[in-house]
């Protein structure tokens, strides 16, 4: 059996996951490039050109804030989660845990069937 091409499906799944990931990551102030590297260090890859528009959307919704730091040798834009963002993150994590539980149970049921 050949490996299934999960590319487009993975992209769809990533949309929701990335939002939780970024909200979870921003408990500590970070700038874009540091987020990319941190995520890569965890064994996951986020497209740079996807991350910045996502950050912009999250900021527009009031879930994160941003400010430019001009103190270093080059300007960096730091992002941080807001109180609303934390509430959203908690809600999304609950959804994600529930989805995970359902999938785990179905996988177990399928093992019994086989």
């Amino acid at each position, binding site marked *: 059996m050949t490996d299934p091409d999960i590319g487009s499906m993975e992209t769809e799944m990533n949309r929701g996951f990335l939002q939780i990931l970024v909200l979870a990551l921003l408990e500590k102030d970070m700038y874009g490039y540091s987020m990319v590297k941190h995520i890569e260090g965890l064994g996951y890859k986020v497209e740079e*050109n996807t991350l910045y528009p996502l950050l912009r959307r999250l900021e527009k919704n009031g879930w994160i804030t941003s400010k430019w730091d001009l103190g270093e040798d080059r300007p960096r*834009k730091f992002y941080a989660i807001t109180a609303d963002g934390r509430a959203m993150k908690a809600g999304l994590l609950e959804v994600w845990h529930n989805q995970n539980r359902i999938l785990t149970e179905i996988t177990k049921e399928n093992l019994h069937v086989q």
Partner: protein
Amino acid sequence: MSNKLEIYLEEISHFLSGRVEREEILSEIRSHVLEKAAAEHGETGDAALDKVIAAYGQPRQVAEKYLDGRPIIAPAYRRYLFRYTTLLFAFHGLLTVFAVVFKKDFIFFPFLFMPRLGVIEALMYLPTAFLADLGVVTLVLYFITQSGKEVRLPWPKLAVDLDEVKPPKKGFFVSRIGTAVGAVVMLAITDFALYLFSRYHTIFFVNLDFANPRPLFTAAAGRRLSMIVIAMFAASTMTLLVKLFTRSRWVDTISNVVSLALIGLLLRQPFDNLFAVDISERLLPKIKFGLRFMLLFIAVIVTVDLIQNLVSIGRKKLAKSV
């Protein structure tokens, strides 16, 4: 500051035009690219920036990620683009025929002004009218889509969609045999017409006695009309011959355009001193009207076929691009 990075940002900026936060977006990308080049290549020279920029993505692709993704026309309303355009154009086409036949202006203020048209002007006007109708329907569907409201657009259940009209599915050889027979018949008709024309300078007669033929039209009119009709025969023959090798809709489209031009030429011919035989004065205007109406009717049918072909070509191109 690197010229390459600024050119890259300028290209992204071009695709972001109209967005108020454009400068902020470009600053974010500039900061990221410089940061990555320094961290991963140890410098921010052109070679390093080239690599980072290539990894970041094509300018249009980057810019599109910032756009909210709302389509110009929502998928649920896309079918209505051709449905409503067909309806509107049918109405438009009918008014055009009225404007030509009854020689009158039509005004439906503020939506439509249809001036009194000559035949050639009418034929030139129809494709323009189709594009205008398409534009109006697109604009309405655009506003409905952008409003974000759930609007139920009316359409009768039994109505046939122009975009659903498909050529009948026949086997390769069956369809080619039909075309080949048609081509042979048309070739024979064209040859016979050419033979008649070379011998008598007309192809229209009131009797079938070729030893002593009586032409229907006067010499000059008969020659002009015969040449146009022979050109129509030749165009049909060519179309059928080409269709033996390709089923491209472009062949039909070109054939439609040539037919419309020739019908236009026919309609432009002066109707005075046309007939070489005696016809009562009372009957003459009715014959003229009948001929004009018949040719216009054929022109409308050809125009509808032309639009079907253009819609089909357009839909195929759209399907390929998705």
